[in-house]
């Protein structure tokens, strides 16, 4: 039977504690969780019936719950949902082979939380304002063309679109700059994704020390109060899903 992997964690000399904890948590489809340990790190896994290639959303939530429960007690790296291994031996092999990478990443996230910040705007309203600003540039764009044909009309339309996009991005860059400045003191590791949908202008994740949580929330709250036209959604604390960079070859 295949094994599904949930997380890689620092177990150190807390083996007994881990075993106790695992006996109190249920895996996907009420399966038993077990751990495979090498030196000071362990992989948490459970059985997974291999013929179920397509699985339900509920499984993913079960999976997340296990990771969440483990994260309350151990420093861990969440493993992407759906990672199956053929046998405990295969898991053990991975642990040994990639021990250094796992250890390095674990140390990076030790005593830290992940937070997620999504910033929304009203696309119709805000883009209208930006469009007004780029109108004078649009006048310039028209000068690029000497002929007047369907083709140049099309290109002109495209150029205006592209310029408008750049202006939007610039706007978002400004906000990112502002957020970075405001949070500089907390020194988080961050990742920003711009314009992920027309309305979500920013999808950011932060990794920072656990004790800075309240200060962080306050800082975001302050930012929020300075931007009436933007909606802020801050969630967390999460296990460090976004801050593991291991791709095995």
């Amino acid at each position, binding site marked *: 039977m295949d094994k599904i992997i949930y997380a890689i964690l620092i177990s150190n000399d807390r083996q007994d504690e881990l075993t106790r904890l695992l006996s109190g948590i249920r895996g996907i489809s009420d399966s038993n969780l077990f751990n495979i340990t090498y030196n000071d790190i362990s992989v948490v896994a459970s059985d997974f019936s291999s013929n179920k290639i397509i*699985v339900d959303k509920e499984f993913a939530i079960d999976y997340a719950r296990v990771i969440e429960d483990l994260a309350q007690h151990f420093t861990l790296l969440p493993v992407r949902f*759906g990672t199956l*291994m053929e046998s405990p031996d295969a898991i053990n092999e991975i642990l040994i082979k990639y021990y250094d990478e796992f250890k390095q990443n674990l140390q990076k996230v030790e005593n830290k939380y992940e937070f997620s910040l999504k910033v929304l705007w009203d696309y119709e309203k805000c883009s209208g304002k930006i469009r007004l600003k780029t109108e004078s540039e649009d006048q310039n764009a028209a000068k690029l063309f000497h002929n007047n044909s369907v083709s140049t009309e099309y290109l002109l339309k495209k150029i205006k679109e592209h310029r408008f996009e750049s202006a939007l991005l610039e706007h978002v860059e400004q906000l990112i700059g502002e957020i970075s400045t405001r949070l500089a003191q907390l020194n988080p590791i961050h990742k920003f994704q711009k314009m992920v949908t027309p309305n979500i202008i920013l999808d950011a994740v932060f990794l920072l020390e656990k004790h800075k949580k309240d200060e962080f929330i306050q800082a975001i709250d302050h930012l929020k109060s300075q931007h009436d036209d933007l909606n802020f959604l801050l969630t967390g604390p999460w296990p460090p*899903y976004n801050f593991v960079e291991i791709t*095995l070859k």
Partner: protein
Amino acid sequence: MQENVIDQSKDITILEILDRVLNKGVVLTGDIVISVADIDLVYLGVKLLLSSVETMQKNKLNTVKPSLQIK
């Protein structure tokens, strides 16, 4: 109304969880597996994001079997 608000905030929590569990975390295989009729055919680098045929709306997920690709 009150109940509705609670429901929706739970929705967000679940959406955020799914986003993490499905798309983030340690990737034990460096590739996306494209399979046809359950036969794995093509592996693409993880950086090349392709949308899924089975979308979340259908509440279905596909799993990859990294054990086959790891030497």
